[in-house]
Structure formats: C-alpha cells, structure tokens
C-alpha cells in the first residue's frame, strides 16, 4: 500500500486539512473546461500553502513515483489539468496572496493562486493595470495563466502573458527551487528561463511565485460595437484598421450564431440580424483616442458596417462581459462545445473566416465563431452532442481540417489555449519531428522521471514504451 504511505507522508508534511481523499471530492478534480477529452479521478488532491509545502509534495511524489498534476482554477481548454495517470493533483488555490505591489518599479509579485481580476483590483488604486485579459479573468489564476501563456481581449495592443512575466520562482521536478528573472527591465543572464516556464503547461516545473510588469492604466478609452451584413466585410475591417496603423486594445469578433446565444444570456440589446459584430476598443491619451476612434468609424462605414459607441462605463462593461460569455453561452445550443484556437497572421483573417464557414457546411456542423480577430486568433466552436457518435466523428474530421487550413495560411495550432492533451498529436504538423524532439529533450532535461503533468504536451511515456 504505497499510496497509503504516501498519503500519510503528505498529511504529515502539509497537515491533514490540505490533503483531500474523499472519493466524491476527488471526482471534482477529474475534469477541466475542455470538451471531448477523457476524465480521470486523481488519487489525492493537495492544497499546499507555501513553496516549502510544494517542495515536500514533489519529494513525496518522487519517493512513491506518483505523478503531479498542477492545477489553478481548472478553466483551461486543452485538458491541461486532467490527471490522466491518477496520482496527485496539486491545487494552488490556497497560495493566493499578493506579496507585493511595487509602484516605483511598476511590478507586482504574487503567489500562483491569485485570481487575475483580484490582482487588477489591487493595482487599480495605484493607477496601474495588468493587461493580460483572458475571458476567464474573474476565475483564472495567475499560475494557470502563466503556465498557459494566456492571451485574451487585449492582445493586439498589449500582447499576452509572456510579455508581462518578469520573474518566477519554480519548484523543479528534482525538488530544487530556482528563481529566474526579476524586477529589472533588462536581463540577459543565462538562457531565458522565464520564457521557457511561461507556457510550459505544468510540464517543466511548478510555479510558486510570479513577478509581473504593470503598466499605467490608459487615461481614456472609447469602446465601439460595429455590425456587418457580410462576414467578409467584418474581416476586411479588421485588416484595414491595422493597415491604417491604428492598434486597438481590443478587436473582437462574434458571428451570428454566437451573437444570438450571447444576447439570449446577457439581454443587452445586441442586434441578431447581422453576419458578425466587431467589438473595438481604442485607449490611450484622449487626443489619440479621439483620432483613432474616428479612423475606426470611417473604416467601418467604408466596409458597409454600422457603428455604435458605448456611452458609459456600464455599457462598456456589458459589451465586454457579453463577449467573455461567448463560449459558455454557445452551450445553450448544444451541450458539447468543441472550441478551437488555431491562429493565423492577421492579414489572413478574412480567408480564415470564410474557410470556417465552408468547413461547417462540408461536415454539416453548426459552428459558432468568435475570438480575438485583431490577433488573427479565432475560436471556431463546433456545437455538438457527445452522445451522437456520428456527429463526433465529423467534428474530429473538421477539427483536423481547421488545423490544416490555419497552417497553410502560415498560422499556428494554438494561439493561447495550449497543447495539453487535446492537441498533442498535431504538434509534428507544425513543428516537424525535429521540432517536437527539441521539446522532448527539454522535458527530459528538466523532468527525467516524467512526474510533472505526464501525458501533456510531449509524451515521454510513449517513448519509453517504444524502447
């Protein structure tokens, strides 16, 4: 009964209240927000309260050869937190302190369990902002979003999580604790480990402390809603705005299928007689905002669209909240929402939109498309019912075709949701065998025993079997 012994050791190291073993409780850690992936119950869930606790968990896991599955809020969309091989789920929810806000250096240092929105609420009184803004900003943890390198609604102008992570504390698979990066604006000491761990999806180390860059909150902003009768007009508007050298903070699209369900949930008067809506926000210095908003309006009109401006903060919040609700709102239509994240260079956005329409027709599937149009990052969401096997076969074929099209347009498999277990087998399509091999070498160097989130990103176990 080595599991019993491991549990005893875990209880001793973390205190019994941080070791969860009730079968019903464990079942609640067998899934995340990903559709159409297997679920698996872990053997135990631990809720460490400190880096020292995390080190203890790693040591015990190594001793008893149990895998560790790091978990924040479990909102990722690539099966990243599912404990495929049982073992230990390490939930960071109790490591949720904001350790420091440093207005002189424009940084904040947090534990991984801090919710993104809570950080933003804490820095707002300083006139500061942490820009990464995934749709789950009110639920996702800093640790989870760093591990996924999340993007979100402000990617176009402000970039994604990796552009804000300056320093990390990481517990390695060996149980050692390292720190990389820090508060300095410049740092070329050694390889860029901060970037390596950002987006590593819990496969290379457990992040226990994060120092992020903050920016001064914009003085002014203008938020607009534009409607189009043709999908191509919406796509061309996106491309043209950027060609005209206006970089909005937010440039989001929702197609008609999406708009209908979102309006049904939010009741904020979104028009449903459109092929697509664009949600556009420009921000910055008031004069610039005014000029940019004018330019945007001009481009919309030129592309046969109409435009409305949010009159106040409440109206703005409503629009953003409605957009954030897009994915779960689509579940009103059908229970299984297979969302993709393929991303293309932004000049190809119209081509991608039209290709998605075609794929939907070809496979006789209902697809709701929304996403970060300005980033070339669309989220075509196939609405299906997992109980319908024939439909699910068509879904999987359509997904493959979506990837093929995206890659042929010079794009990528995943813009922001990560590889996890959902997209692992497609990696060679984009990276080639040699590229995937580099990932393997990195994984082996940092986690030779394959205990950190095994079965995700690159599968070392498969290799072992093949030997």
């Amino acid at each position, binding site marked *: 009964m080595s599991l019993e012994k491991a549990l005893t050791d875990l209880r001793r190291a973390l205190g019994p209240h941080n070791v969860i073993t*009730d079968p019903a409780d464990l079942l609640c850690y067998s899934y995340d*927000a990903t559709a159409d992936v297997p679920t698996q119950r872990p053997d135990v869930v631990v809720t460490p309260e400190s880096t020292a606790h995390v080190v203890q968990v790693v040591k015990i896991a190594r001793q008893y050869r149990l895998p560790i599955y790091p978990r924040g809020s479990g909102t990722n969309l690539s099966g990243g937190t599912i404990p495929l091989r049982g073992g230990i789920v390490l939930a960071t*929810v109790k490591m949720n302190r904001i350790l420091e806000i440093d207005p002189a250096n424009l940084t904040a240092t947090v534990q991984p369990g801090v919710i993104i929105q809570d950080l933003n609420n804490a820095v707002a009184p300083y006139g500061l902002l942490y820009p990464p803004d995934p749709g789950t900003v*009110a639920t996702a943890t800093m640790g989870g979003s760093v591990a996924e390198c999340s993007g979100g609604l402000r990617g176009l102008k402000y970039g994604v999580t990796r552009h804000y992570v300056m320093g990390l504390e990481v517990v390695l698979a060996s149980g050692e604790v390292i720190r990389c990066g820090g508060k300095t604006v410049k740092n070329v000491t050694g390889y860029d480990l901060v970037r390596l761990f950002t987006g590593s999806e819990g496969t290379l180390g457990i992040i226990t402390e994060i120092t992020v860059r903050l920016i001064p909150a914009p003085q002014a902003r203008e938020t607009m809603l534009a409607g189009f009768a043709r999908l191509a007009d919406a796509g061309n508007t996106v491309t043209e705005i950027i060609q005209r050298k206006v970089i909005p903070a937010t440039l989001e699209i929702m197609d008609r299928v999406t708009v209908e369900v979102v309006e049904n949930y939010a009741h904020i008067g979104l028009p449903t007689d459109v092929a697509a809506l664009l949600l556009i926000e420009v921000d910055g210095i008031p004069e610039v905002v005014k000029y940019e908003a004018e330019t945007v309006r001009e481009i919309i009109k030129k592309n046969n669209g109409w435009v409305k401006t949010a009159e106040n903060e409440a109206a703005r919040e409503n629009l953003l909240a409605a957009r954030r609700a897009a994915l779960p709102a689509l579940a009103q239509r059908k229970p299984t929402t297979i969302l993709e994240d393929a991303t293309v260079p932004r000049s190809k956005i119209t081509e991608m939109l039209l290709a998605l329409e075609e794929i939907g027709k070809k496979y006789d599937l209902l697809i709701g498309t929304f996403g970060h149009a300005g980033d070339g990052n669309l989220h075509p969401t196939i609405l299906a019912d997992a109980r319908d096997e024939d439909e699910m076969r068509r879904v999987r074929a359509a997904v493959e075709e979506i990837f093929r099209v995206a890659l042929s347009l010079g794009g990528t498999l995943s813009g922001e949701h990560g590889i996890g277990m959902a997209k692992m087998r497609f990696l060679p399509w984009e990276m080639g065998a040699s590229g995937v091999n580099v990932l393997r070498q990195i994984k082996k160097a940092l986690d030779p025993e394959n205990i950190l989130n095994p079965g995700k990103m690159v599968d070392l176990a498969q290799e072992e079997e093949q030997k």
Partner: protein
Amino acid sequence: MSLLNGMAAVKEEIIKCMKCGNCQAACPIYKELRLEPAVARGKIHLAGMLAGGELKAAPALAERFALCLTCLACTAVCPSGVKVCDIILAARAALAAELGLPFAKRAAFAALTQPKLFRAGLKTFARLQGLAFRRLAPFKMKPRFPLGLEMRRVVPPLATASFLDRAKEKYPVEKPLARVALFAGCLNNYVYPRVGHAALHVLQANRVEVVIPREQHCCGAPSIYNGATGMAREMARSHVDIFGSLGVDAVITMCGTCGESFAHFYPRLLEDVPGYGKKARELARKTTDIARFLYRLPLDKGNLRSLDLSVTYHQPCHLGRGLGVVKEPVELLSGIPGTRYTPLKDPARCCGNAGSFSLSHYHLSYRILGHKLKDIAGTGAQVVATGCPACKMQLTDGLTQENMSQEAMHTVEILAHAYGFAL
C-alpha cells in the same frame, strides 16, 4: 418538469454545463473554501455521476449537496443557462429518498406538516425559552448552553404571541383599492410578528382590504430545500386549498423564500396532481411580494411622515434573483421623505443564512456574513432594510456580535413607521 421526477428530470440540465467554471466567481461558498466540490461546476459533475449510477447515494455525498446556499448567484452568471438550483434540489431529493433525512430535520419537517401540533409546541417553547436562552436586549438572546446552536450566536426570541394569534381574520376597508390575502410565513409569524403587523398597517393605510386565513402554515420551503419533496407537496396542496378559493386580487408574501414556494415551486410540485395543476398556477400568478405590491399600487405618498434616517438595503437572494424584486424595495425606501438611501457595494451578495444551512454550517455561514457586515459598515447607514426574515435574523446576529450600531429591519417595517406605526 415536475420536481418529483428525481434525477431523470434534470439530466439535460446537467449535460448543459460545459464546465467553464464561471460559477467560481459568483459562489459565496467557493470564495471561502476554494474547493471544487463547493462550487456549482463540481456539484453538477457529481450530480451527473449520481444520475448515471456511477456514484451511489452516501452520507458523504449528501454532505456535498448540503454545501449550497441555493442563493442562485451561479445561475445568474451562467452563460449556458444551467438551472443549478434545480439540479441541487433534485440531488438532495434523490439522496433523501435513499438515505432518509437526518433525524432532527425529519422531526422538524414532520411537525411543520402538522400545523396545530407545531403551533402548540412553539407556544410552549416561547414560554419556556428563558430557561435555555439568556436575553441580551428585548429582541436578542444567546443560548445558555449548547442546543445544537453555536454559543456565540445571537438569536431572536420567539414571540409570546405570534402574528396569527393577534391578527384578525378580516380587515375590511371602505372602498378598497384591492383585496389581498396575507401569508405570514413561519419566521415572521413566530419570531418577527411586528413585520406582519407593519404590513397590515401599510396596506390599510393604502385602502387595501386584507384577509388572513387562519389555517395557513409553513410554506414548505424547508422541505423543498432539503429534499423532502413529498412533504412539500402536501403543504403546497393545502395552501392551494386555503388560498385558492378566496377570490382575492393578490396573495402577499413578506419573505422571498415563501414567495418562491408559492410562485415557483407549487406549480411544479402539483403539476401532476389531478385537479391541482391549474389552481397552483393561478395561485402562483397571484402571489406578490409585499414590496412589489406596494410599489405597483402605487403608494399613497400624501400620508407619509418624514423619517430622518439613513438606510441601506440588503437584497435577499430568493427575493431578488428568485422573484426578480430588485428595484421595488429601494424605490419605496428612497420615496420616504427625509430618508437617505446609500446602496451597498454588493447588495445582492448572499448573507450566508440560507435557512438550515446556518445551523448545519454556522462557521462558514458567519464567514460569508462577514463580507456583508463590512459592506454595511462602509455605507454609514443606521438601518439595514431587507425583505426576508431569515436575512434579518442573520444580519442581526452579525451586527450584534460585531458591536455594530445598525439595526436590521424589514422594508415594510420602515415604511409602516413612516405611516405612523410605532416600532
């Protein structure tokens, strides 16, 4: 969907949850515990396993489903439109049917179905309560020894004369604007009878004729929320009989939870009971919360005296999210001359009472209340108005323990005061 069809009836509802986790941002219990089984997504997953037979009924599982305030906050933010509360109640009912209710709850609910016995029992208790409780102030007391209640908890005494003891059956007025029946509800009847008298006062001051059926009893909410659906149906049936034949314009409730029983649950409980479906829907349609009724009347503002009062408002979950009564109480309060209304930052956040939840999970309930108390302190108001006696009890407990000066009152008490009712 009938509430009695068990897990089968909520299967589609369960499948609708796509596990986005948005409920984490809304759930007051998750905010405290941050554990997945505490949040809707986790419980829906468990309900799915229970419905599919992969999980067996067990006390530990029942405990997971007990860990829900039924505050509807998750349902309100669920973009997929999952009716979380239906799933929770179905699971509680399924588990109660297999495991039975814990003895204490069973005894209490059985008593509630026997109104006469229950009344007699409570009356005896009202006389003897001094033996068990230490009085702090006229309307507050603490347990003298553990009674299954937390020792620090401040509870109101039972009134020596309940509202229904004192109230007459009919209050005719000249040229009535409307005729209504008043439903007291247990907490208002036995603990806060002043609320009933206040409502009567305001209704009469506005030329509304009131009838108060003597045989009325518990609305059945404790049974509904604890999975004793059979008992709940009996109570629903009896109230349809009692209130259905009065020919009144409205049936007035003074508690969001009672209101939801009448307006939302009775039709579903009685859907399949021959001869009752239509009557239950009719009763549901007539059921109106006191604040909404007065707001729509509209009130005769001529007789209102000025009250020099700063007031804030706590929105009860079942009244606000449940019945959609949101603006009415606030409008009524701000309409009283001299009254300054300051909103809470988060008026709709659950106070943590949730009926028997505050008995079974007192510490957690009090932690949740803590956020509300902080919010109240921030407003500088003298009085916290609310529309639910259970919230009032919870707020009073916290305000007293934290030595805060504010008093919690039902909206209609404040309104009655402005009509000259002595508090």
